[in-house]
């Protein structure tokens, strides 16, 4: 069927567009409907007066913190008792949450020794008991028990040496199990003995580092005793008697404390509790080792808060503690002489959890004693350790109001083992969360930094500054921040101190950025970029730059035109760009590129388009490693071109030239093609025909470089053919309005496109080339029309250019014939490949186009149409049921449409229909 004679017929019907009718709406159509059920629980209503849910909602509207609201709601509870119950709850919660932290902090590699009689095998234990029995003459059971209590430590004691911490804890777990078991087996005496032993172990301070962990391990175990106790008062009284006869002080106190709650059964008055607590407090004075007694006091407080909200006994504990306090430093002095056992500072650290917890309980919901404690603190010699705990436990509001006092205290404090830097660090974090009064701030800061700057050890220095950074950046001017940065620069450069403190330096920067209002102001500080130079290690540096840029992304103003800011950001971006290499992961690239893109979008010079473009040029030079940035730059340049308001096309040309130069540097062919097309369209829009041509040509030339498939995000290969098809359709639609260039022949680009498509290697049996051909046919048909359906303003398209010249039409018809030939070839190969269904569909598509576009009066064309129809009918069984009738119907509609305008053509169609029916 070579050399098909194709003649395009003019369109003789109106093209109507059926637009969808819009409808104004207030809600997003895709938004899901939610049904709000209003809780109408009568109980809660009775409690609160109003519906609690709606109250929540209302208060939320008032921008209340939901948490604080919860608190107030708790307070509103009519029953006071209930509140009392919640109070200790949050304290104990705190304790259990602390527990893990403390356990992790205070660990040891030293061997622990554990002496106990309960881990020996049952047999020998029984033997031991029997011998005791033989000795005891007194038949009385209780007497026997008491004897046993006294005997057990020299009876069947076994020392277990060289345990690691893990084993140690395991042993305790074992003991605990034993304890519970013996309790349940009614061997209460044994349970008590185990408890006493545990408590005894608390007196063992040989391995100091582990001490704070010990009570935590041991204490929970004895709670079971309490849990097991019945509520019978006589029974409980009996237990108290038993405990009161324990010989050693520490176990006696610990055990009494552990069942302290049982006093509930004996008396209910609060005064009674307080009296007992006070007595215990005084009894604790008998424990000489300050560490042991501190933890015992801590335990006392812990048990106390669950029963009484009174703070007096805690206060007394502190009074005693302050008396014993100098004792601690006698130990400290000893450890200073023997640092091989434990260093003084780490020894003092051991006290911290106990002090912290006690102070916390003291100030929990009560302001009564804060001032007292502070005053006593002042009078204390070596007050560092307690001050430290005060800073970490007291409310920051209190600290803020007394900030000047605190700083004076710290400056005066000369505690061995607790450096000023530690204290300042804590103070820093306190004032960061709640600043002192406005008028005090400057003096306060001055006083603080006087001391901080005196610190000689860079480690101490940086640790201090780390917490102060927030305060400074939040409450002071940029000058102050700049000065801080400058100070850091000089301090950290000394002896390359920065090398060891990257994380702190990083933290400081993050905090400053988080808290300082304007990131732009920060960027232009003279000390800012030098600060970055402190990060000499490549990976850290990159991390820091990323961080800054992401802060910039979040916090900056919408646009910036400050040259210094842009320069600084360029500098950061450059560092990031340089860090990207062949080994970088895709995700890393994407992140960096995204950050830089944000920055590029934010740079905006207003109406100074030239400067903007030159910025883009600079950016292109700087960010040479990042595809995505180039893409952004091209888009940005295109956008810039559209903002051009002047008559001359010079600037637009410059923009497009910029794009044209930039695009080839992008690696992804797909991106390049898209961008070329975009630029081409843009150029066309601005009447830069030469550049448009160049762009289109470049785009088409790239088609053959397009890989068959790309790798998806999931790692699956994805065929690029759908992309190619849609891209070609897009370009075909554009080409309609592109006027032929005088240097090239008629419809040069279409020829080029067809040639490229012909050369491109598609997948076997792919329908892609046929679709492109079909659309080329559409495009050609449009070319044959007297007036194109759309134009670009100012561009003289082919319809005007050739003025419907017959020679041009002949050319078009020839090309149509070629395209149809190509499609027929496709049909044939489909037939050979047994692809009946797609063959039939393609045939129908072509059939429709012939009916619409071609002159059916020509016998060859009509014959072709009939043949195609027959071909499609052969595969009728494989097609959709509706396909053939619909095709037929659309032919009939066409017939009706043109019946009046062109009777001859209608005649031809009618004839064709007849032939179709007859065959």
């Amino acid at each position: 069927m070579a050399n098909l004679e194709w003649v395009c017929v003019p369109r003789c019907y109106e093209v109507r567009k059926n637009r969808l009718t819009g409808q104004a709406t207030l809600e997003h159509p895709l938004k899901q409907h939610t049904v709000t059920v209003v809780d109408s629980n009568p109980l809660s209503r009775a409690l609160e007066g109003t519906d609690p849910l709606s109250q929540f909602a209302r208060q939320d509207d008032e921008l209340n913190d939901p948490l604080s609201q919860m608190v107030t709601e708790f307070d509103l509870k009519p029953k006071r008792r209930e509140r009392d119950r919640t109070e200790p709850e949050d304290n104990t919660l705190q304790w259990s949450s602390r527990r893990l932290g403390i356990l992790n902090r205070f660990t040891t590699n030293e061997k622990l020794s554990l002496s106990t009689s309960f881990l020996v095998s049952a047999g020998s234990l029984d033997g031991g008991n029997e011998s005791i029995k033989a000795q005891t003459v007194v038949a009385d059971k209780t007497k026997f028990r008491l004897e046993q209590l006294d005997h057990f430590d020299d009876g069947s004691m076994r020392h277990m040496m060289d345990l690691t911490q893990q084993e140690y804890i395991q042993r305790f777990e074992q003991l605990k199990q034993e304890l519970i078991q013996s309790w349940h087996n009614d061997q209460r005496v044994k349970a008590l003995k185990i408890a006493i032993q545990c408590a005894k172990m608390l007196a063992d301070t040989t391995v100091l580092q582990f001490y704070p962990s010990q009570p935590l391990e041991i204490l929970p175990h004895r709670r079971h005793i309490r849990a097991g106790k019945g509520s019978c008062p006589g029974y409980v009284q009996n237990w108290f008697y038993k405990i009161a006869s324990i010989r050693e002080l520490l176990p006696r106190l610990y055990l009494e404390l552990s069942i302290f709650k049982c006093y509930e059964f004996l008396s209910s008055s609060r005064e009674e509790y307080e009296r007992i607590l006070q007595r215990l407090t005084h009894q604790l004075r008998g424990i000489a080792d300050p560490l042991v007694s501190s933890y015992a006091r801590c335990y006392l407080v812990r048990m106390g808060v669950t029963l009484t909200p009174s703070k007096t006994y805690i206060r007394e504990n502190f009074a005693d503690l302050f008396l014993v306090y100098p004792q601690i430093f006698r130990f400290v002095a000893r450890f200073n002489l023997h640092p091989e056992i434990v260093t003084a500072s780490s020894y003092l650290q051991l006290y911290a959890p106990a002090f912290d917890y006690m102070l916390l309980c003291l100030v929990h919901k009560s302001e009564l004693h804060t001032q007292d404690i502070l005053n006593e603190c002042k009078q204390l010699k070596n007050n560092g350790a307690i001050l430290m705990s005060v800073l970490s436990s007291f409310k920051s509001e209190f600290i803020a109001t007394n900030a000047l006092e605190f700083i004076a205290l710290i400056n005066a404090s000369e505690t061995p083992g607790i450096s000023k830097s530690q204290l300042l660090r804590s103070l820093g974090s306190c004032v960061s969360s709640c600043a002192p009064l406005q008028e005090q701030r400057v003096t306060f800061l001055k006083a603080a930094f006087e001391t901080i700057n005196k610190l000689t050890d860079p480690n101490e220095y940086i640790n201090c500054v780390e917490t102060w950074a927030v305060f400074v950046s939040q409450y002071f001017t940029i000058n102050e921040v700049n000065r801080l940065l400058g100070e850091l620069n000089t301090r950290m450069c000394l002896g390359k101190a920065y090398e060891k403190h990257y994380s702190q330096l990083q933290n400081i920067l993050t905090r400053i950025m988080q808290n300082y209002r304007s990131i732009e102001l920060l960027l232009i500080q003279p000390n800012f970029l030098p600060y970055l130079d402190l990060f000499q290690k490549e990976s850290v540096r990159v991390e820091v730059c990323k961080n800054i840029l992401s802060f910039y992304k979040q916090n900056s103003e919408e646009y910036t035109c400050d040259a210094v800011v842009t320069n600084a950001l360029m500098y950061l971006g450059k560092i990031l760009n340089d860090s990207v290499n062949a080994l970088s992961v895709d995700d890393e690239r994407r992140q960096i590129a995204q950050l830089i893109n944000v920055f590029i979008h934010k740079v905006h010079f207003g109406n100074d388009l030239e400067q903007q473009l030159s910025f883009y040029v600079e950016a292109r030079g700087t960010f040479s490693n990042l595809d995505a940035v180039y893409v952004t730059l091209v888009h940005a340049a295109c956008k810039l071109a559209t903002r051009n308001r002047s008559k001359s096309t010079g600037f637009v040309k410059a923009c497009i030239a910029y794009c044209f130069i930039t695009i080839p540097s992008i690696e992804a062919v797909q991106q390049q093609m898209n961008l070329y097309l975009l630029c081409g369209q843009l150029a066309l829009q601005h009447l830069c025909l030469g550049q448009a041509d160049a762009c289109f040509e470049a785009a088409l030339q790239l088609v053959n470089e397009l890989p068959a498939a790309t790798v998806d995000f999931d790692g699956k290969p994805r065929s690029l053919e759908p992309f190619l098809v849609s891209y070609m359709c897009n370009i075909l639609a554009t080409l309609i309005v592109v006027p032929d260039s005088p240097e090239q022949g008629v419809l040069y680009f279409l020829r080029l496109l067809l040639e490229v498509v012909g050369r491109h290697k598609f997948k076997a049996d792919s329908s892609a080339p046929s679709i492109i051909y079909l659309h080329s046919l559409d495009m050609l048909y449009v070319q044959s029309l007297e007036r194109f359906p759309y134009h670009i303003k100012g561009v003289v398209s082919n319809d005007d250019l050739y003025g419907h010249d017959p020679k041009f039409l002949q050319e078009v018809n020839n090309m149509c014939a070629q395209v149809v030939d190509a499609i027929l070839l496709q049909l044939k190969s489909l037939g050979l490949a047994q692809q009946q269904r797609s063959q039939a569909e393609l045939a129908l598509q072509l059939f429709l186009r012939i009916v619409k576009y071609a002159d059916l009066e020509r016998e060859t064309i009509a014959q072709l149409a009939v043949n195609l129809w027959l071909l499609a009918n052969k595969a009728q069984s494989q097609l959709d049921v509706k396909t053939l009738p619909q095709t037929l119907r659309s032919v009939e509609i066409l017939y009706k449409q043109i019946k009046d305008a062109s009777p001859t053509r209608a005649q031809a169609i009618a004839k064709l229909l007849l032939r179709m029916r007859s065959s």
Partner: protein
Amino acid sequence: MLLGCVQFQCAQETKHEGIILYLEGIVNLQLSAKTVGLFDAFYNSVKPINLLQNSLELSAPGKLSAGRSEFHFELPLVCKKEPRILYETYHGVFINVNYQLTCTVKRNFLGKALTKIQQFCVQYKPVPLSEDSKKVVPFSLSPDSLQKNASAKERLSMPRFLITGRLDRSEFCVTTPITGSITVQHTEAAIKSIEMQLVRVETCGCDEGYSKDATEIQTIQIADGNVLPKLELPIHMVLPRLFTCPTLLTKNFKIEFELNLIVVFKEDYTVSENFKIVLKRSAGPLPSKVTTAGR
């Protein structure tokens, strides 16, 4: 008056030859071989003193019906002869004051009699402590105050120390803890531990052959380690219920109590001070062991 009830649980009807309750209160005295000599101990062993002897027939010979049968009884608790008073229940080493109720079911000559013994406690009615006993008992320990039998040389070689303190009173009630305080004023040698020991002093017999023994009841640690000087440490000792009773002075025997304050120094030096205390019952019993011991 002792009130009670005896319960029988029989599977079937049972014959018996009478059910009798015996009430008995005895002071058992024993001379210790240590103080009197073995020989004396054998011969002079003091006769137990009968405080109470009473019996009551709950039922004449007959039958107990199947199921549960109860006999309620009331017995007067009165000492008719010398010393005309019922002492408090007390369990010591050489002296025991014991009260018991024995229920015996006699059976025909083939069957053995069934008996069940139940001890019970006797306590005085509370009497208030005398006014002058509320005076504080101060004390102080120093090398000079130590036993005079240490030679002057020995005393010189001793480390110097001064420990002062007080007992809140000289008479205590058995149901309330012994309280007081102690303060280490200064000490040259480090203290290892301060302990308070409760001691009973039991005296048996009268003029010619008597024995006096002090034995420990309990020791309680007051201070552990070298406590801070000038810090007042509380003394708080709960008295064990079964091993204490109000101080008892009779013709035949005495039960007295003493406190020993023991200070142990680092080099295992021990210094002690002795206090005589009088125990009385001035307050009613706390919910006590009596209620649980019977079960």
